[in-house]
């Protein structure tokens, strides 16, 4: 069975400082991993995905994530936070060779302080 643990329910950073949102996963098969962002009253938007190519994945809006198999982690980072980054972020795992479904973490709310 697959599962995702987002280690922080809420992260608060100042504008212009780095962002780190932590995610650990568990999967019986070779996983696909995703980060989605959900702005208030908007649909889920894909930030980036890992599907067994390069372990460092670059996404939209300056975000990137690194797949570390030995640590079963897929942390999301951004060098410099912007006010528009304030949103809910979800780490997601999918079993590429099995069940066709996304398993979501509980989410991390990112707050940006001016």
């Amino acid at each position, binding site marked *: 069975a697959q599962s995702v643990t987002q280690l922080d329910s809420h992260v608060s950073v100042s504008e212009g400082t780095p962002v780190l949102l932590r995610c650990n996963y568990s999967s019986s098969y070779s996983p696909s991993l995703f980060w989605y962002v959900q702005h208030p009253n908007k649909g*889920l938007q894909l930030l980036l995905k890992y599907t067994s190519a390069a372990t460092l994945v670059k996404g939209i809006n300056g975000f990137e994530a690194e797949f570390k198999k030995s640590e079963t982690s897929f942390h999301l980072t951004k060098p410099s936070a912007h006010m528009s980054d304030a949103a809910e972020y979800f780490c997601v795992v999918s079993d590429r060779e099995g069940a066709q479904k996304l398993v979501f973490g509980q989410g991390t709310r990112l707050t940006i302080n001016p």
Partner: protein
Amino acid sequence: GAGVSQTPSNKVTEKGKYVELRCDPISGHTALYWYRQSLGQGPEFLIYFQGTGAADDSGLPNDRFFAVRPEGSVSTLKIQRTERGDSAVYLCASSLISLGDTEAFFGQGTRLTVV
């Protein structure tokens, strides 16, 4: 349309009533998914369609929930004898083939409130 469309955007119903939630996927997407997101939680899988058939309905919580996709495009999620615990945002997503190869695109959801 350009994206996944869900109607209605909001639905308030009385306990015990029947409701239908509609999803229009992106044209040409064969895979369609329903998720439920309760307040403060991540979305939880309900059911997955590949074409017209429900390939995986393991996430449906009980037999009050049912979904159809008769022509392989539009899908309807049906909830009978609604309960207050059914209140949540119901999300629909579609993808071109299957998740291993392509991205899932989400609609904005239907917020269901059972009073």
